[in-house]
């Protein structure tokens, strides 16, 4: 089994994205980064297949950098 890269049908992308952004509201940058890291760890804990986890980590690590310097 390898990493799923296709979008599941009917996935509520905009709602999920909104919730992810809301995680950072009224928080310092450090707190927001911590929340994201905690989310990643929580989600990893739901996955039994460790090879998927390692594959995802690898992909995320080697992604081309996104955009210009952050705001």
């Amino acid at each position, binding site marked *: 089994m390898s990493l799923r890269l296709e979008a599941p049908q009917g996935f509520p992308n905009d709602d999920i994205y909104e919730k992810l952004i809301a995680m950072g509201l009224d928080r310092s940058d450090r707190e*927001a980064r911590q929340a994201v890291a905690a989310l990643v760890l929580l989600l990893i804990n739901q996955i039994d297949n460790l090879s998927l986890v390692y594959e995802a980590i690898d992909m995320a690590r080697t992604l081309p950098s996104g955009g210009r310097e952050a705001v």
Partner: protein
Amino acid sequence: MARPEARSEARSEGQSDHEHAALPAGGRARRPLKLGAFVYPRYDYRPLPHPDAQGRYSVVVVGAGMVGLTLAIDLARKGVRCVLIDDNDTVSAGSRSIAQARRTMEIWSRLGCAEPMQRKGISWSRGHTHHGNDTVLSFTVFPEGGSRFPSFTSLAQYYVEHFLVERTKELPGLDIRWLNRLTGLEMTADGVTLAIDTPDASYRIEADWVVAADGAKSTVRSALGLPFTGDRLQDKFVIADVRCDADFPFERNYWFDPPFYDGNTVLRVPQSDSIWRIDWQIDPAADVERELAPDLVQKRVERILDGRTDFEVEWVSTYTSEHRLMDNFRHGRVFFAGDAAHQFSPFGGGRGGNSGIQDADNLAWKLAAVVEGRAVESLLDSYDHERRPIAERNLADSRKSTEFITPKSHHSQAFHDAVLSLAKVAPFAKAYINTGRFAVWPVLETSPLSVADVDDFPALARPGTPVLDCPLATADGRPTWLTDQVGDDFVVVSYGLPADDVAGALQEISIPFPVRSVAIAAAGQAMTGRVLSDVEGAFARQYDAGKGTTYLFRPDQHVLGRWRTFDPQTIARAVSQALGYADGIEQETAR
């Protein structure tokens, strides 16, 4: 008499901060004289005193933009004595609201205005989003089946308003007063008095009802001291209409971090007359006058148009997004529609103009019914109940698009960057790219008028849904559309039933509003009387129709109720309750 805090522009559907046009100076409010092939009309101002100037009117509409014109046309068609005032004498400067949604075109079709718009407008079906040098998303807007109109028609607001004004000329009962500026307003329990300035003199008129369609900076709202809650974002954009005969494909292109511009975003969308709408984001702290300087604009457009120099910048302006909403779209005898009631980011997927037209569509038949004494006044409360939840949804969706386009924090920027990077290698991430979603189909989910389903039906075409159009044919084989058959009256659409039986039964019931009957049958089914053929089976599919299925449409073409069998008393009760007669037909019959 309450007076507005400051004069505002009656037709400010956009959120323009500054406006420049390639035109001689001296025109009112920097209106261009010509934009591409479009020559700005000057509508006739009638000097005072003219015999009709004062007096009392059923409805006064303030603001002759696309919303005010649509509403006034609908009212005039229904025979309502209506005055439309505007502080200018021409149409909007610049393209502004360019994405006319399918539902909007259907509304204008009902009003007899859509044909020239359809001829003039164009439609693009491909779109691309780029990140740097990479294309991260390409999509096709598939033509939606069952409608004569595409998902949207790209047509500049000035053309829309021009065609609407042309339509008003066919409606002698509609009194449009150009260069009439509202200066004050006084509301009592019985009516509204409006103070109006003209180039010659000031005067007052009285109205039973007033509709404020005077834009985001509504003079009416200001005069009544009503709040317009929300926020103004920091992000600034330059917007330009550029004429260029380039043979670029008719496609929408959106760039994040474009390689040809040192800014965050650029948008390029085709319009008719070889005009391209181009937006680019500028630094919030930038000197706006400098950003609009012709040499700089020229340079930027040249790069956005792949180095071409054979173009002309016809109109250029800047805007800042605002998200605002009134807490009620009705205040006593005054209603708010369009940008006067709600304001969304222009990147909201064409929500601003389109939802304003839906406001007009929703309000017109209710006002007419009350003015004509066919409905209880409380029907007018349903305008806010039905339309404000839609505005709230549009506002929420618009915020999501805006947040993706212009992230407001490091945290948000990180997700934005991650999505765009991931989208290059992982298709699922493309679905997170949000440069403006199409507005949701405006189902009136919270309508107090709708009759809840008692029979088993799928969710599609549920009560509150705007008509789902489908092709039909008359008995002699002429093609027609469902949208041509419903609207203006309450309309019973029955399937597979003898037309004369349904029509006859409806004539027997007593309702203070016209109820028409439309009979539809499966293609090939033997038909007697005036029955329309469901030539492609689209009606049966979309409405889950079998023999006896009955839909009741409102005058604004939304589904009021649906049943598996036709029962005239059920129809009578539904219509009477919709008109505000709480106890239904029995109560109404007794009146």
